[in-house]
Each structure stands twice: as C-alpha cells, then as structure tokens.
C-alpha cells in the first residue's frame, strides 16, 4: 500500500509544480521589474535625454521590447504592460518631452470607455471610422437622454385603484328640514311679516293680471251698448228710452294695486296701507267697479255726444270725427288715454268707494303713489314668473333672518325633539342629546349632525340596512312657510371633521317613504408638488368656517371676503369672519344692488378661480350614495293608539297613519359593502427610474460610467499640469538664451586649444561643449 500512496503523491506534486511554474514565471517577471524599477529608471535617464532629438533614439526602444518578448512567452498582457509603463514614464518626464497628443494617446490606452481606445491605436477599420462611429453613438445617447429627461420632467402620476377590506368608520350624517323656519314663529316679527305681505301682493297681482284677459270683453260690450243706443236714438221710439236707462256710470276713487301704468286691481282689504289710488268706472245700478286706471292717466276734457249712461267718446280719440254733434253745448267729462272712453264729470265731488260702510269722502286732489326703498330692495317688481318671485322671496327671507341674533334664529327653527322622532344605529337606540349636534344653516335653518364627534369613532362592521343609521323625522308640514315648495328632508353624508354644505352636497328625501341610502366609500390620495398641487395644511387666513378646510369652503370664503371688500357688508348666506363685520341689509337698496352686481359679474362664488387660490386636500374621503325607496308606513303597521307625533289624533288608526305618511320621512343610511376603494396617486416616473434608464442608455450607447467621467477629470488635471511645466520650461529657455554669449566665449577658447586634441582629458571637455552648441543651434 505505501508505494502506491507515494506514487499518487508524486503525481499530485508534479501537477502542482507545473501550474506553479507557470504562475511563478508571471510573478517573477513582475517582481523583477518592480524591484529593479528605480535602478532601471536611473540608468535609462541619461541616454534617454541625449538621443531623443534623433530618430535613431526610438530604435533601441523597440529593440528592448523585442528582447523582452523573446525572453518571456506571455504575450497576452503585453498591451496592458506597455500602457502601464507609459503611464509611469509620463508622470516622471512629462515636462520635458510630453505633449498634449501623447497625453491623449496615453489616456486612450488606459481608459475604460468603449470605442475611444481604437481612435488612438491602429485597427482594421482605422481611427477615423472608429471616431465617426463613436460620435454617432454619442449623438444617439444624447437623443435618448433628452427623451428620458422629458419623461421625467412631465411628473406624471399613476392612480392605483385598490380594494381594501377593513371596518370603515361610519361617516357623519347631517339632516335638515326642507322648510327652514316655522311660519307661526316668523309672523311674530314685523319686518319678516312685511316681506311675506309684499310677496303675497305681488303674487296676487300676477294672478289678477292673468285673469284680466277677459276684461277686454267688457270694454267691447260697452262699445256695443253705445252703438245700440245710437241706433235707437235715430228711431225715436219712446219704448227704447227704457233700455237706455239700464246702465249708468260714474267715476269713483278706489284703493288699488297697480302693477303697471295701465291696469289696476281694487284691493279687497280696505285697511291695508301703502295702497295706490285709482279711478274706476262704477255702474251704480249693479254696484260693479270695472275697469280701473291710475289717477295719472285721467284728464278733464269737453265732450260731446254723451249717452244716457254717462259715457262719452274721447274728443281727441281716433273716432272723434265720426261723431255727430247732437247737443249744442259740450259737457265737462273725465277721460283717460288708454281705452279712450270718457265719463260725464259729476256735478258734485268725486266720491270714494268703501265696501263696508259706503261712506263718501271728499277729495280735492288725487293722492300720489310712491314705491318705498324697501320694496325696491326686495326686487320683486321686475319679475314675471311666479317661481322666480318665490325664489327671490326666499332670498329676501335669508337676508331678513340673517339680521336677527343667533339665538333668535335658532328659536325660529325646529328643535331636536320636534324634528327627530326615532333614531337607531346598529339596531340600538341613540341618545338624542349625546349623538346629535346642532348646525345652523342659512338656507335650511336648524340641521342636526349625527356622529359629529371625531374622537368617538362608530364602526359599521356589517353591511345592510339593519346595521346602519335609521332616522324617523317629522317635518311638521302644517307649519311650513308659504314659499316652501317641497316637503321632505335634506341629507348630507360627510366626514366628521368636514363642514356640511346641504345646499351643494345634499340629497333630498320625500315624506311618506323609507329612503335607503347605500354608501360606498372612496379614499383619494393625491401627490403634492412637483406632481400635483394638493396640500393638507393649506388654510387661507381668515377662514369663515370653524371646521376643517375644504375646497368648497375656500371658494365661499373667497367670495365672502370679496363682497366685504367691495360692498362693505357680507353675504348673509355665509358666515362673517369676525364680529366687526355686518351682513348686507335686506332693506338697503345700495347693499342689494352691490351684491347683485357682484354676483352677476363673477358668475357666483364658484367662478372666481382666477382670483382665488383653493387647493385640493391630499387625503380625502368621498361617499357615493345609491338611493332606493319604499312606501312608509304600511297599512297594517302599528304606530300606537296614542299616535305619539300628534296630540290631537287619539284612538284613530287611519288618521294617525295618514299623518305619518304626510309628515314623516324615514331615512336609512348604511354601507352597501364593507370594502372601500382606495385611489392612490403615485409618481409614475421617479428619480430611481431616471437613474436606471440613464445608466442603461449610457452603458448601451457609449459604454461610459461615473468612473469614466473621473478618468476624464484625471486627463484634464494632467493637461493642466503639463501646461504648468511647459511654462517653467519656457522660462528656462530664456535663461539658456543668456548663456549663449558665454558659450560663444567658450567656443573661442576651444579654437585656441585646438592643437591639444591628443590628450584624453581635453576630449571629455570638448564633448560637453559640442553638445551645448548643438542644442543652441
């Protein structure tokens, strides 16, 4: 066994020896060169200086290289070693013999970029082809970099839509009555009652003007009657005189409401103040008063051809020439310029019409009618449509109520126990005082917010109507204002720290129905600068709302501040920033005109984008609602014998059910599904992507890297150093120029000593002198 083991060891050793010999050759060569490097440099320095001006000096260099290649058969790394030697040499002797060109060649030999080494060395295609190829690739790289930078500077975003599955927090719900204030409470205030009276008069005037269209028939009937009277006069029969005595007209003063300058309507309420005065045709035999004209259009004239009924044609009218003068002397008469009918002026004073006690008052002059500033500020006289009149009255009401103190405004509207009859959340009853908060809205009065406290989080961990919020709301339709067109409630679903805006973000729910609002939540995440313009901490100063910032509140705040700046008073639909400011007065024409002009010029507070800086929040929750309804209450549903909502109805099931159907609305708010969508905005092209793409491009086209740029920096430093040493050499040349005179003197000495050539010492001295002469030449 032992001889076999020995033989194996010998084989292994021989293999190691072979590989080690190959490796050692390389190492020995490196070691030899590095160890003897200083000596070789010292020994080479003197001969390298002398033969450099001659072409023959290069020849020994190549011979040395050939000798080394013959000595060592390792040609694989010869180029690297050559470049290494060049690099070492250039650092030592560059200030004497090195030029920028040689530095460039040395750089090309050692650079790590692709393509540049072939520009300075010989190759198959030649240096010009490689240079052109490199320039083309450089152009391609720059073009690609331009595209990459363009894509990065767009700052585009990607919206990720994720479906998250968590217990979503229940939002806050604000409910309002569609009728803002109780009518019975409003009429106790004289100013507000005056507004309602004015609205009623205008509405009645519109209805009167609509029914005045058959009024023309009466005028035509009068004309027909006059024609018949004329023909009968010509017959001269005694029996016709009795027919002529059927109608007798006389003028009478009446309190009227004149919508325009042509037609007037008698007032039915004789005690009403601020009424206009008009003069009417009165048929004394029947008590009819029609038609009526303003007192300004009546004039006294001389008429002829009057009938037995005391009506006369207008002497200045279009039919004046056709009349035949029957009587010789004209009579005084009252004429108006609208229908050109006249009446015989009575011998005594014109009396007043009074439907109650028929008292006749004597009037020397007809009174004049003036429109007060308050009525002009209300702005109802220009409107024609009944809906527009009602809407304008609603706005007037907002102005009037805004002038009242806050406590008074709260008392005008509904209390919590009046409005909310039942409340349950997650099948449990709510606590009325703890779970609801009052929110006074200018348009909807008292609104109540459920789940207002953001420190208390209500979780809704089940889907479906049974596990949400259920509210039974009593709207008290009998106490509605006459200007309220619809019966029901207004609902806003919002976050707990957000201000509810029922006039903008609300849903209406009718009475007599169970309205189911199925919620879906969407979380929005936006990016701030430079991708977007959102900000979570943005809040303008001053800000008129107490809750968290929202873009809707920002637009309203901007409009309110603009109104305060220009008009000197605030819009009553928005809060005031401080106690020092006041709302615009409803009765002031200047205030209303200024606010109206500002609203029409800017197009409302949602069109002030040029002057308002309103930012979106970076994190937002949006609630989408799906609505469906079912009839409430059902026929057999037991409400109770005492009918809790109404104290008058007792032990009458049908009347109680009918009251609930007319006056209550049942609202269900629940989560349709427990998952919610999360829309997150992320950067589409980040800095990391930019570096990756840039690195890929630069590696693909020109093979550069960051270290390659450092190589170029090194080359630049070498060139600067070369320039510095070139300057030193230039200065030394000047010094050598001064020595030329001394060398010429030495030349003279040399000529004198020429016969002594045979001595060895003289030979050495002559060698030095000849070298200097050659250099000077």
């Amino acid at each position, binding site marked *: 066994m032992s001889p076999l083991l020995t033989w194996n060891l010998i084989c292994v050793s021989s293999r190691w020896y072979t590989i080690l010999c190959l490796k050692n050759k390389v190492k020995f060569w490196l070691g030899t060169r590095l160890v003897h490097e200083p000596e070789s440099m010292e020994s080479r320095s003197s001969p390298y200086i002398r033969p450099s001006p001659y072409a023959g000096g290069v020849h020994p260099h190549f011979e040395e290289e050939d000798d080394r290649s013959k000595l060592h058969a390792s040609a694989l790394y010869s180029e690297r070693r050559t470049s290494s030697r060049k690099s070492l040499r250039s650092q030592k002797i560059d200030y004497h013999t090195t030029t920028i060109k040689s530095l460039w060649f040395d750089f090309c030999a*050692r650079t790590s970029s692709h393509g540049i080494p072939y520009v300075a060395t010989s190759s198959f295609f030649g240096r010009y082809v490689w240079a052109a190829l490199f320039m083309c690739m450089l152009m391609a790289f720059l073009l690609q970099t331009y595209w990459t930078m363009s894509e990065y500077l767009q700052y585009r975003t990607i919206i990720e839509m994720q479906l998250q599955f968590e217990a979503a927090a229940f939002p806050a719900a604000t409910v309002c009555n569609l009728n803002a204030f109780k009518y019975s409470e409003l009429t106790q205030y004289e100013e507000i009652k005056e507004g309602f009276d004015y609205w009623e008069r205008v509405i009645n005037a519109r209805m009167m003007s609509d029914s005045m269209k058959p009024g023309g028939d009466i005028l035509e009937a009068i004309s027909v009657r006059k024609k018949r009277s004329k023909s009968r006069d010509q017959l001269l029969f005694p029996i016709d005189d009795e027919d002529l005595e059927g109608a007798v007209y006389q003028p009478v003063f009446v309190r009227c409401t004149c919508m325009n300058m042509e037609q007037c309507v008698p007032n039915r309420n004789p005690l009403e103040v601020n009424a206009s005065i008009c003069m009417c045709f009165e048929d004394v035999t029947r008590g009819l008063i029609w038609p009526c004209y303003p007192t300004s259009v009546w004039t006294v004239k001389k008429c002829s051809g009057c009938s037995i009924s005391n009506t006369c044609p207008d002497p200045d009218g279009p039919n004046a020439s056709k009349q035949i003068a029957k009587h010789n002397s004209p009579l005084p008469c009252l004429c108006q310029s609208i229908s050109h009918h006249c009446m015989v002026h009575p011998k005594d004073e014109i009396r007043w019409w009074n439907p109650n006690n028929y008292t006749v008052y004597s009037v020397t002059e007809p009174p004049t009618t003036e429109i007060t500033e308050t009525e002009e500020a209300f702005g109802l006289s220009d409107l024609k449509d009944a809906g527009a009149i009602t809407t304008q009255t609603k706005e007037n009401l907002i102005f009037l109520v805004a002038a009242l103190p806050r406590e008074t405004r709260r008392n005008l509207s509904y209390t919590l126990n009046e409005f909310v009859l039942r409340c349950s959340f997650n099948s449990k009853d709510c606590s009325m005082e703890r779970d609801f908060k009052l929110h006074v809205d200018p348009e909807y009065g008292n609104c109540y917010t459920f789940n207002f406290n953001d420190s208390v989080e209500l979780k809704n961990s089940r889907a479906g109507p*049974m596990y949400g919020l259920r509210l039974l709301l009593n709207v008290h339709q009998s106490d509605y204002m006459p200007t309220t067109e619809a019966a029901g409630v207004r609902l806003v679903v919002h976050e707990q720290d957000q201000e509810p805006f029922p006039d903008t973000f609300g849903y209406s729910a009718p009475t007599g129905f169970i309205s189911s609002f199925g919620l879906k939540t969407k979380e929005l995440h936006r990016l701030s600068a430079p991708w977007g313009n959102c900000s979570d901490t943005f809040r303008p100063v001053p800000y008129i709302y107490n809750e968290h910032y929202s873009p809707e509140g920002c637009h309203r705040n901007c409009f309110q501040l603009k109104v305060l700046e220009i008009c000197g008073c605030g819009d009553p639909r928005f809060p005031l920033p401080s106690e020092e400011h006041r709302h615009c007065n409803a009765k002031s024409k200047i205030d209303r005109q200024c606010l109206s002009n500002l609203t029409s010029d800017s197009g409302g507070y949602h069109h002030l984008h040029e002057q308002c800086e309103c930012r979106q929040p970076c994190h937002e929750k949006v609630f989408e609602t799906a609505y469906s309804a079912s009839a409430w209450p059902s026929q057999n549903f037991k409400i109770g014998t005492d009918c809790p909502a109404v104290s008058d109805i007792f032990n009458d099931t049908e009347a109680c059910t009918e009251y609930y159907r007319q006056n209550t609305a049942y609202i269900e708010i629940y989560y349709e599904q427990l998952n919610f969508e999360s829309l997150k905005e992320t950067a589409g092209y980040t800095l990391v992507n930019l570096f990756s793409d840039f*690195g890929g491009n630069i*590696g693909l086209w020109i093979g550069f*890297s960051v270290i390659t740029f450092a190589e170029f920096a090194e080359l630049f430093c070498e060139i600067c150093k070369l320039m510095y040493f070139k300057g030193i050499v230039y200065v030394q040349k000047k010094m050598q120029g001064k020595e030329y005179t001394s060398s010429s003197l030495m030349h003279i000495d040399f000529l004198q000593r020429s016969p002594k050539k045979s001595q060895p010492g003289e030979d050495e001295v002559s060698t030095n002198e000849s070298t200097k002469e050659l250099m000077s030449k």
Partner: protein
Amino acid sequence: MGVFWTGLKYVFTDFSCWTSTHGVPHIGMANARWLRAFWILVVVVSIALFIWQFITLLTNYLSFSVNTETTLQFAERTFPTVTICHLNPWKLSETKSVDPDMSALIDAYNSDSSSAQFGLPASLTADRQQQASKWTLMYSERLNEKQYNDAADIAYSYDDMVVSCTYNAKTCNITDFNDFYNPSYGNCLQFNTDGMYSSSRAGPLYGLRMVMRTDQDTYLPWTEASGVIIDIHMQDEIPYPDVFGYFAPPGTASSLGVSYVQTTRLSKPYGSCTTKTKLKTTHYTGTYTVEACFRSCMQEKIIASCGCYYPAYSHASNTTQYVSCDNGVQTLSNLNCVDLINSADSTEFDVLTDCDCPQPCEIDSYGVTVSTAQWPSDSYVPTECNPGGPSGPWDASGESCLDWYKANTILIEIYYERMNFQVLTESPAYTFVNFISDVGGQVGLFLGMSIISAIEYLVLIFLVFFYCCTHKSRRAEIEQLEMDIKKAKDDVDQVAEKRKKHQKANAELYEMDTAHDIVPPKPHSND
C-alpha cells in the same frame, strides 16, 4: 510571510490589469499614493451610490404594486338572475291560523303592554319592532317547513305577487320563475336562474317588465314599509336581498338600469384576495362570496357559544350533534345569546378580525341605477279595471279599482343600461424583469460592471484560493532559484545597454567632428 503577501499583491495587480470593471485598473496602475487614494475614493463613492439606488429599487419591487387596466367590451350578455321578494315575509291571517307561537307573538305585539315571554318593551319604540323582527327570523325555518311540507299558504307565491310579466317584449309566466326561500323575506321569485335568457339590446323595452301586487292587508303589524326588494346577481350566486337589495315602493314605476363590471385581481404577494371559487364548511357548501363566508363563520361561533344553530343562517342537517335555537322555552335565552354575537357592537366577536374571509380574486358585479315615476298615470286604465272585468281584492276593500291599483301595485323594469361592460384587470406594476433591467442600468451607470465582470471576480477568488493552497510548497526554493536566474538575465541586459550607450556616444563624436569643420569660418567673419 513577506514573500506570501508580496505574491498576493502580484495577483491583485495582475487582476487589475485585465479586469473589465471601471475604476479598478486605475488603482493598479497608479504610480503615486495620492493618485491611488483618489481612485479608491472614486470607486468607493460609486459603490455607495449604487447600494443606495439598489435598496430603493429593491424596496419598490418588494412593495408589489399593481396596475389596474380599464377596458370597455361590447358583447351579448346573459341576463342576470333577478330575485324579487316581498317586504313582508308571511301573511298575517294564514300565519296566525297555522303556527300557535306566531299567533302568540302577533297578539303580544298588538296589545300595547310588555311581554315577558317575547321580551317586548312596553312603549312602542324601535326596540319593540326590532325584537319582533328578530323573533320572526328565529321562527323562519319552521314557517318555511310548514309552507313547503304542509302546503300551508302563509308565504307569497307567484300568483300572489305577479299581475303581468314580459321579457324582451314577450310574455313570461310561472314556468320562468323559481321559488327561493330567504329567512328575512320569506318566499322570493327568481328569474333566469339557469341563464337561459340573454340580452342583445339595451333599454327598458328589451328587459324584464313586471306589474306586481303588494296586498298590504296581509302585512304583519311590525312590517313598517310596503313594496318589494330586488336583488340582481350572477346565476351561480346565492342572493342576500337583505344586504344587497333595492327597494321599490307601490304607486311607482321603478326602473332598475343594470351595468355589468368584471373585475380581476391578483393574489399574493400583490394582494390579499383568494382564488378559490367554492366554499365548503360544515354548514355551507356553494359558491364563495364574502357574505356567505361571514355567515358560515358566525354560525360556527353561535354553535360554539350558544350550543345551538341559528335557523336564519345556513346550517347542517338537524341531528343530535346540532340543535336548533328555536327550542321551546329556551328560545328567548337563545335569542339573546345569538343577538349578542350578531350585534355589530358586540365586544365578544368581530367578523373582520375573527373570520378569515378575503375577497375573491374574480368578481362579476352588477351596478344598479334606480329611478322612479308615478304608476299608473291618471289616464291609464288597467285591463282588470275595465267595466265588466274580473273581480278582485278591490271589491272586498270597498274602494275603486283604480284607487286600489295606485295603492297596491308596482311596475318594475329591469334592463341593461348599455351593452358594453367594463373590465377591470390588475397586472403587476413592477415585475422581476423590470427589476433586473433597472439594476442593470444602475450597475452600468455607477460601476461599469456586467455579469462578465462578476465572473472575473469569481476567477480572482479562485486565483487567490489557489495561491493560498500552493504557496507553502517545497517548490518555493525553485522560485528562489528562478529569481536568481532572472537577475542574471537582467544583468546581461544592463551590460548590453551599456554597450549600446558607448556606440551612441561614438556616433555623436563623429557627428561633432563634421560640425567642427564648419564652425571655424564663422568666427573669422565675426572678427
């Protein structure tokens, strides 16, 4: 030791000469300490920058973000399954005559006093109505058994609900509908359960159109609303109208516009959805939905806590192992126990944390838009209200036929709003290929390396390893000998160089003599 480290130095210097990595050759070629330090600094800074970028890329890759692609497709689609339920589950008079417990519950609710047997409070509040509803759910299974086994007419059938029906402008009848039992709403009607009907056109004329009756006289006293509830779902899904249904009131024409959305999501590691399509537990076997998974999980919890199963949820067959909570005198305590788990405010049980019910990865959902109008109009006269028409329930109630129609009938239209449907598909936003590409860009930018450079480093490791294994060999003496030979050769080279120098000096001397002949005349001219 000196020889070892010197040799190792030679290995590294040789490596720096032939590697393709940027920067390392300059460290090897530097002839001054400051230059070598400069290049080492450049390389270290580049490596640091690369590590920073690599960590960012790795974090971005490991976040597994997804992209959602939205496309619109246009195709003929199968009409969805429509489940229509009455809002009142059981008829009043028939239920009282069939079940004595329900009769007792109805009598207790109608009297305005409290009831210890059923746990009803005295005042007529929401609690009273909710408690009665819970009792109805508890009794739902026995009432359903009596409906189907004893043929008792306590639930609403097709004839009780439907007045007329058309689909795609053609008449449909009772054969097109299937019965479906729901604990909350009793018997429901299902249309197109087998997917036989499809829609090729959009609009109300080409959908399902039904006139339905509500018969409010037959309502239970705690049913607060009248109308029907409609659930629209896929053919293989079990409907839950108490969660996903839409109401329709009588006296209105309710249009339900349906739009189809197909969603495909990614599972781990991109999302948390599940790819299984079937759910098989002890108490439920069928298509997987989140609501079905929840109810199965809650049923397990109810059985574990209360010792009986809840009849309103799906359960295994009634054996000695599982007993119903509807159990005679113990029903009230069982109801309280079940309610404790069912309640959303319960601290004992949370369905989101205690149940493992992820979203399915593929969801086919229908978005519904509800709009209403008045039904019937003042000038429309139904065929039953014509003079000489058939007698109906309005004769018994004493009101006119038109008034009865306004108060008790609903027109329902269910149709596709548009024939195109939305397809949402999730795809990975940053795949492994993108990651490799970006890392390659970073490596090329900062280090100038590639995979071949990595292989070069492996070769270097091998060389160092081999050198360490063989440097202690007895052949070291031969190395010394060869070094001496090298030195001798170098000496010979030096001697040769000296000779060349002498030759050059002689040549220069000859050139100097030639120049010497020319020089003398110039001084004379100067003199």
